[in-house]
């Protein structure tokens, strides 16, 4: 299988967190970026040839991925390919994903693999793509799409599927649709490379350029599309509410273990060489996820601290997500907030948001 991480047509809806970066490189879970989960799943499933189709705001993504070394994807044969949008007309507007696949069709021709798995980058889960391929082959399907049963309140944007008892998918509908089902698409599609390239050609010839909408949804009665149900914990993270919700879910040790301690499937990310977290005399941390390089002198509750965060004496951080290198000075109170990288909160400030609408501070802000 070759892996395609499709970031084309991806809305960057995480408010301040996606002002200057795309969804794939949004920091998540105290030391990762969203794309780490998808890439690690691919690598752990033995996929050694991965292309990331990017569209815009990908500086931080390139910085994060580098040569692909951290995922063992710095290979002479195959490895990691970052394929940015090709702009043909002078308008400078990039077109849909099928058009981008077409512009980079040589990538597909060169790969020896027969099958392709096309994913997004905002599904936080630990999944074995080999099992999906096995299922695909067993069913003799044209396309296999991975889905899960939605739990209570999802908060994210997603597509729904109507799945028959034998696993066949009869309808795929956008978020705005009226389909009544709790089958939520994880936007992971397995198909043969041949079918994908065929879809690229025929859709573009008709003036369509959107893989799922034009290639799959419109042809669902002509193709045999099957649904593979994934039972493991999965967070769809593409709105600020779902970001907050799924971050906080990591504070459940059961979910923390399931995501990060599958014996063979560790999650890889870029190394930062930070020392272990340091707790001082009056440190008080409860129910929190804390990364290396943090210095905790104050109080931290139900929160997630990324690498290198400093919480000074008398400060109190509650129900919040504090990204890399933020500094919270003495006697600051922060509740229900998300602070992007390098935010500095000066002495004595009080910042409180609402759980449904957390307070968000953009990168490098001084408050």
């Amino acid at each position: 299988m070759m892996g395609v991480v499709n970031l084309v047509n991806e809305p960057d809806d995480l408010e301040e967190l996606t002002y200057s970066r795309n969804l794939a490189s949004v920091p998540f879970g105290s030391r990762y970026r969203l794309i780490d989960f998808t890439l690690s799943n691919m690598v752990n499933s033995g996929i050694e040839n991965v292309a990331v189709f990017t569209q815009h705001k990908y500086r931080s993504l390139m910085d994060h991925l580098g040569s692909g070394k951290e995922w063992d994807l710095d290979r002479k044969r195959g490895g990691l390919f970052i394929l940015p949008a090709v702009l043909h007309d002078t308008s400078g507007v990039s077109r849909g994903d099928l058009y981008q696949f077409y512009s980079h069709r040589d990538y597909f021709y060169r790969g020896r693999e027969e099958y392709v798995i096309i994913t997004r980058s905002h599904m936080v889960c630990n999944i074995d793509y080999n099992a999906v391929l096995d299922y695909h082959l067993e069913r003799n399907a044209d396309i296999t799409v991975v889905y899960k049963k939605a739990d209570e309140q999802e908060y994210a944007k997603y597509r729904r599927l109507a799945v028959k008892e034998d696993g066949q998918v009869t309808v795929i509908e956008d978020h705005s649709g009226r389909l009544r089902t709790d089958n939520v698409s994880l936007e992971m599609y397995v198909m043969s490379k041949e079918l994908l390239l065929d879809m690229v050609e025929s859709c573009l010839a008709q003036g369509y350029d959107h893989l799922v909408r034009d290639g799959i949804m419109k042809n669902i009665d002509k193709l045999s599309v099957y649904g593979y149900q994934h039972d493991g914990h999965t967070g769809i993270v593409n709105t600020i509410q779902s970001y907050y919700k799924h971050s906080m879910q990591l504070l459940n040790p059961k979910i923390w273990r399931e995501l990060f301690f599958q014996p063979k499937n560790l999650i890889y990310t870029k190394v930062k060489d930070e020392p272990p977290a340091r707790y001082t005399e009056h440190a008080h941390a409860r129910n929190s996820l804390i990364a290396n390089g943090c210095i905790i002198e104050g109080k931290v509750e139900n929160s997630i601290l990324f690498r290198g965060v400093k919480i000074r004496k008398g400060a109190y951080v509650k129900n919040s997500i504090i990204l890399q290198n933020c500094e919270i000075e003495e006697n600051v109170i922060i509740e229900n907030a998300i602070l992007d990288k390098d935010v500095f909160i000066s002495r004595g400030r009080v910042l409180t948001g609402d759980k449904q609408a957390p307070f968000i501070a953009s990168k490098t802000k001084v408050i």
Partner: protein
Amino acid sequence: MRKKECVAMLLAGGEGRRLGVLTSKLAKPAVHFGGKYRIIDFTLSNCTNSGIDTVGVLTQYQPLVLNTYIGIGAPWDLDRKHGGVTVLPPYMEQGGGDWYKGTANAIYRNISFIEQYDPEYVLVISGDHIYKMDYDRMLDYHKQRGADATIAVIGVKWEEASRFGIMATDEEGRITEFAEKPKEPKSNLASMGIYIFSWKALKEQLIKDEEDEESSKDFGKDLIPRMLRENLNLVAYPFEGYWKDVGTIQSLWEANMDLLEKEPAFKLNDREWRIYSVNPLQPGQYIAGTAQVRRSLVNEGCCVFGEVDHSVLFYGVQVGEGSLIKDSVIMPNVTIGSNVKIYKAIIGEGTVVEDGAVIGTPEEEGGGDIVLIGSNERVGKTATTTGKG
């Protein structure tokens, strides 16, 4: 091969007998330290941070873990096309083979490795000390003084002086006398085991020393005294700052505890001088609602439900509810059940401490020696362990 001004030779073959069970399957430089690191990380990071990109690592005792750990040197940025890190174990020759007989012999037998780079200077260091040092500044000093050899020295406590190589210097810092572990030390200037040699002079000395049948082929015992006898220009390079030999259980434990001071003399959180290490791929640490963590270093991958006070926890350590860990060093992936009490202990990698076990003695009850428990052991409730050093 491109010429290099200075090549580092890192002596990492040490057995570390005084570290007991910690080194039964591990060379001393590979012993864990500071919640995340292995002892050799500090010297390798010093090389990288000093701009030395060619390092030969001499291994000998139980090399598997160490060799695997060093790999191609990528974590320390030593994966280079020209130079980088090379592991140098003893090898066989046509006329037979032998282990490295002493530190000088180990370098002697790798002369051809050094000559590939045609260096002006050779830095000789060992992989069993905790310190941060800019070797480049020491090299400048060496050049300035036009020395044949420069030895880094540090003032130690007088009562400890007989554990070290002790130097006497004149007012210009020229070394006049050198005594390895003297019974009655004449000064408290101890050799840190860090030498810079002008390669031409060193090579000559190595050959001489090799031919000398009386010699034990050691830098401190033979080579340096001979250089003094021959009236070569040997200077001392004074070092101020944190330096600790972690060769005993006591000093290993102390050095770990030193990191927990309010203002530690050895700062790990120093972005200008990062300590590089192999990344174990662990998520952020989870500190549960029932947990209490104070005056401690905790690494990623830990899951803490109990109380941790004045201790160092390496990656992947699990601490169950109702447990207390005090004044201790817990190595990677140790699983501690619930209602366990651990006082002043070093617990080896992968060991399982069962529910209700008690290790060591609380200070209120007189405290005790450091309790040492090896790797991959199982400590049951019945086997209540107390101080045994």
